[in-house]
């Protein structure tokens, strides 16, 4: 953490001129109140008047401090948080029935393995706040529960909801590892990585991504075998940490009766394939842990936690701390210390009416016409102190615009998943169109928390609003009407879910409904009041055309009605319009609106602006304490001029000290001017320079010094200069510091000169290439939550790879829907392609072709949407009256 100090209002330092001005004033006109007491001089042989010097010094110091306070001293904390961002990890959790074995000791008796693991995983996630974590669950098949995300709160929720029996039984160890690897592939943008040269020095860059595989059995099912998956992991240098849960041998299993009631336990054999796990971890330079009790489990995660910490990225954060209190409080204390001096003015025989009050000032004494009068209270000083105290309480009112603000607006995208969305009147289909619009909208609203609701005959919150829309993207890429069992278009069901989808702290709520609008009933109208009370604006986007199109059926044909004629689905904007108008939103028609996404974005922002809550979002209360300090200063100056006694002298009015004081004042002006200039310059907020960088720079200086002294530099000298320049650039880029381009240009010039001298002395081309690469602007350093923009991501890497055949299950679905394959491709590219992990070259490795091929097969079936479909089935009523719904 670096600190810098600055003044928020440096011009206020001109107030320091008050000090010489007051000195001058008091010298010429300042005075002491006196009481007319005849013969007092005879009574007091020695006049020990208290010295005003030190106390007045304190008062002037207080004034100076208040001036400084009015100039708003601030500490700018440049927090250079070292973010341990390097760890992107996938937790693969076994959900097979053997996880029910109760061989862990809980606080209240034995608990099953899942119960034992759950809190440990949650603690592990909490302990790695800067990591992006994905969760893969597996049993008979492997599914992605959550793609890589930083939304850890949500991850913990998902983990809390894990249940044994969600999935078909079995233990697909190989598939789980494979799916975990696919998650890591699609994770990181290459830009976050150190430059290639730096990564060469840290072989494997191992800390960046890893998999934690938690299981209790041997591989019993799945497409990939553990060795195959391990081969891929090893090739991609992804360490696999394996944790074997539970004991081998007979363990107690719960026994349930037919009604699902637990009746007791039974000893059943449990076998963990320790060797397989050990091989997996050993071959990928991970570690294996046998966690047969609670402590061992926690120790295993603690070990992983300790092993996988990598500091990659600096995050610079400006925190401005107002320091005026550090000036105001001493100023008040100084005034307090000087207070006894004031008694010189107010004390005395003030209660005696026949003693005349006068004032010795400027060498003469003057008496008021009216004699007597009580002591005058120093009300100016009292007011000044009062204002200073008020300033200390840091009054704030009004608001100022804040540059860095947090809108906190939430957008929930409701995607119509009815079958009619498959109609192809918008190419390639309404669904694809809606998906693209939604994906683009997510990109357009980077400051928003965006969630996703899918609805058809029912509605489900697929992804809660989050700033890290990894899950949302995963769903958007793969969700299809087939995933929601209950068909139809029930807006009422959507509106029932929608208010609960927004979080409590949402400053503005916008529901974007992407639908073709053929609502079955008008029941949604009853829910409008609820939307309004939750201040949710609805923006409707109608997909489709008025002419309509036939709806594809599941069996490959077209949907027909009871008269065996094709169902023609048409766009029906009425219900969407009613929704939007009822909540103050807007409606768009996708087929005719140009710049739909842009207009949507503006509509969302407009809807948020119209909500009173968000008005204050971009501003923070304005500090008003400088005004109070200024008031206090003026009053204090007035008090010093009139209330604070000066030295009572009747015998001098010299002019020379006055001139001297003027000179002092002028010099203070100059001083203030220089201070001004200093504080106006922005503080340097450069990240700390490491030893390596210093060495690199020292090397350059050394070589250049050598070159300068050398009468006739040789090619070797130039080569050396070029090399140290390149080294300098590499080191600095490695620390994410700005590179001085002059150094690199010097290096290039050295290459040119040196090559002419002797082209054969070294690798001129290599050095030149390195220098030129360094001269290109560095890739943007992403924020911790920053997903790479898929649109920006080159797809070349993937295009180079042989596209494997689709799995049969997918094939069925996709045959009629050519757009689906594109979306499948999109899924793989969500978040960008991690080129260093997904290496097209790995297909050339004969030992990897088969595993990679198998991995491609299971890739598409493991999406969160698939998991959603897999777990949704039991919840849906099986016997639904047969209706034609689309």
């Amino acid at each position, binding site marked *: 953490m670096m600190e810098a100090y600055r003044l928020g209002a440096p011009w206020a330092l001109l107030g320091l001129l008050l000090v010489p001005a007051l000195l001058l004033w008091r010298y010429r006109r300042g005075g*002491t109140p006196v009481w*007319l007491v*005849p013969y007092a001089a005879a009574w007091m042989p020695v006049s*020990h008047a208290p010295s005003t010097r030190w106390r007045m010094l304190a008062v002037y110091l207080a004034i100076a401090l208040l001036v400084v306070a009015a100039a708003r001293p601030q500490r700018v904390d440049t927090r250079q948080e070292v973010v341990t961002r390097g760890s992107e990890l996938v937790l693969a959790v076994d959900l097979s029935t053997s996880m029910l074995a109760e061989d862990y000791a809980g606080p209240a008796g034995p608990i099953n393995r899942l119960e034992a693991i759950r809190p440990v995983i949650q603690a592990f996630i909490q302990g790695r706040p800067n990591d992006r974590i994905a969760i893969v669950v597996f049993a008979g098949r492997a599914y992605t529960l959550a793609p890589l995300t930083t939304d850890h709160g949500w991850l913990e929720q998902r983990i809390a909801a894990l249940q044994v029996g969600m999935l078909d039984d079995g233990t697909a160890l190989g598939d789980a590892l494979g799916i975990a690897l696919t998650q890591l592939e699609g994770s990181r943008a290459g830009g976050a990585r150190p430059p290639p040269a730096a990564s060469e020095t840290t072989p494997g860059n191992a800390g960046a991504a890893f998999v934690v595989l938690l299981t209790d059995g041997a591989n019993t099912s799945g497409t990939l075998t553990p060795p195959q998956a391990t081969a891929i992991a090893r090739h991609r240098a992804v360490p696999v940490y394996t944790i074997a849960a539970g004991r081998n041998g007979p363990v107690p299993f719960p026994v349930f009766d037919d009604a699902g009631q637990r009746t007791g336990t039974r000893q059943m054999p449990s076998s963990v394939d320790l060797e397989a796990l050990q091989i997996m971890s050993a071959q990928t330079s991970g570690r294996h842990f046998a966690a047969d009790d609670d402590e061992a489990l926690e120790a295993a995660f603690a070990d992983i936690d300790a092993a996988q910490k990598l500091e990659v990225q600096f995050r610079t954060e400006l925190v401005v701390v107002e320091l005026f209190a550090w000036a105001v409080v001493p100023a008040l204390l100084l005034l307090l210390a000087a207070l006894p001096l004031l008694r*010189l003015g107010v*004390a005395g*025989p003030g209660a005696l009416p026949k003693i005349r009050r006068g004032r010795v000032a400027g060498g*003469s*004494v003057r008496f008021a016409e009216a004699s007597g009068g009580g002591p005058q209270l120093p009300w100016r000083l009292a007011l000044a102190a009062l204002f200073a105290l008020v300033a200390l309480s840091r009054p704030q009112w009004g608001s100022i615009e804040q540059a860095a603000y947090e809108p906190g607006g939430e957008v929930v995208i409701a995607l119509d998943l009815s079958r009619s969305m498959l109609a192809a009147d918008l190419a390639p289909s309404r669904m694809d169109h809606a998906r693209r619009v939604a994906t683009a909208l997510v990109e357009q609203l980077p400051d928003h928390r965006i969630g996703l609701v899918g609805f058809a005959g029912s509605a489900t919150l697929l992804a809660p609003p989050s700033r890290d829309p990894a899950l949302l993207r995963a769903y958007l890429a793969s969700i299809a009407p087939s995933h929601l069992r209950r068909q139809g278009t029930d807006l009422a069901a959507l509106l029932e879910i929608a208010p609960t989808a927004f979080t409590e702290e949402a400053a503005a709520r916008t529901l974007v409904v992407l639908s073709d609008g053929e609502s079955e009933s008008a029941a949604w109208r009853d829910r409008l009041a609820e939307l309004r009370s939750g201040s949710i604006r609805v923006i409707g986007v109608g997909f489709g055309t008025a002419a309509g199109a036939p709806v594809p059926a599941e069996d490959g044909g077209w949907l027909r009605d009871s008269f065996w004629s094709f169902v023609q689905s048409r766009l029906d904007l009425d219900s969407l319009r009613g929704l939007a108008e009822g909540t103050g939103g807007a409606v768009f028609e996708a087929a005719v609106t140009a710049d739909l996404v842009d207009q949507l974005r503006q509509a969302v922002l407009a809807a948020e602006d119209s909500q009173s809550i968000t008005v204050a979002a971009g501003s923070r209360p304005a500090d008003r304490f400088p005004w109070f300090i200024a008031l206090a200063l003026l009053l204090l100056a007035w008090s010093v001029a009139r209330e604070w006694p000066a030295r009572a002298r009747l015998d001098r009015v010299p002019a020379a000290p006055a001139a001297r004081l003027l000179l002092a004042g002028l010099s203070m002006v100059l001083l203030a001017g220089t201070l001004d200039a200093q504080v106006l310059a922005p503080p340097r907020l450069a990240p700390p320079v490491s030893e390596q960088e210093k060495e690199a720079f020292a090397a350059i200086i050394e070589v250049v010094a050598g070159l300068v002294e050398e009468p006739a530099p040789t090619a070797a000298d130039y080569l050396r200069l070029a090399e140290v320049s390149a080294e300098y650039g590499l080191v600095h880029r490695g620390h994410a510091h700005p590179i001085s381009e002059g150094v690199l240009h010097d290096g290039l010039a050295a290459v040119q000169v040196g090559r002419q001298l002797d082209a054969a002395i070294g690798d001129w081309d290599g050095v030149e290439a390195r220098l030129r690469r360094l001269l290109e602007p560095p890739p943007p350093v992403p924020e911790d939550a920053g997903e790479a923009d898929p649109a920006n991501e080159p797809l070349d890497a993937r295009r180079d790879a042989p596209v494997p055949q689709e799995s049969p299950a997918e094939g069925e679905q996709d045959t009629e829907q050519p757009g689906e394959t594109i979306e499948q491709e999109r899924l793989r590219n969500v978040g960008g392609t991690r080129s260093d992990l997904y290496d097209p070259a790995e297909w050339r490795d004969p030992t990897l072709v088969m595993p990679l091929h198998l991995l491609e097969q299971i890739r598409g079936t493991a999406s969160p949407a698939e998991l959603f479909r897999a777990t949704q089935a039991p919840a849906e009523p099986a016997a639904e009256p047969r209706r034609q719904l689309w």
Partner: protein
Amino acid sequence: MKAPPASGSAARLLDPRARDALRRLEWRLHHRRAESLTSGGQRSIFRGRGMEFDQVVKYVYGDDIRDVDWNVTARLGEPYRKVFVEEREVTVFVVVSDEPALQFGSGALSKREVLLELAGFTMLLAALKGERVALLHRSPAGDRLLAPTRNRTRITGAVADLFSAPVPQPAGRAGFAATPVLPAGVPRGALVVWLGEIPGDPPAADWGASRQRHDMIAIRVEDEWERALPPQGRFMAYDPDVHAVVWVERTPAALAAHAAWRERRERIWASWWPESAGRLVVGMAGDPLDALVRFLRSRGRATRAGDARS
């Protein structure tokens, strides 16, 4: 300071405060003390010891038996009494030395107020007795003189003028030497009532001779703070006497200095006015007018007793 024009005998008065003070004085003179001071055939309290023997006249019933000249009576066989000149013509010459040091009072009144009241009272009393009255008001601003007169209106006006005279600036006393030494022009044999502060220095050698020319009474007012150091302390004070600013604090050294100062002042006072019957110190407590009346009465008796002895 402007003031509304007053009515009646006080029409010339400008200052309402002075007018009030004058009325108060007159009221007291006529209602409380007048009888005792003026009743009967008692001689004026201002007629003290005769200044100049004039003649011997036949004694008639009612004359003061103490004035009988027994020598002449014995020689001529019938009573005669002595007659003095001043009996016929006495001028009460009031001198007010309005020093800045008078502008002080630790009580409800300042020394100046008390002193002016005493002066005014003396003048009015003398006027009531039918004496000729003169007033010399000396202040840093300049001297003002009321020539000897019996005109009651003029005397009252002079008193009012005295009361409403501007308070002299305490700091501007350059050239103002407030010694009791009388200027020339004071009628011979006048009763001089001098009101002021103790002079800073003992009198010069010729003071005794000048004093012999007139019958003189010295009156001063003394504040509590002049008797003892003030209990309140710790303040800056301006001393108009020496034009200096001092820090007043009750310290042992200050107590000692105060005592020494007081002793010296008493000595100076006594050196200017050696006869105890010719000097009066009025304290701020009690009624100053009472003190004055008592003083004048006792002085009258004492002088007459002195005459009788001689």
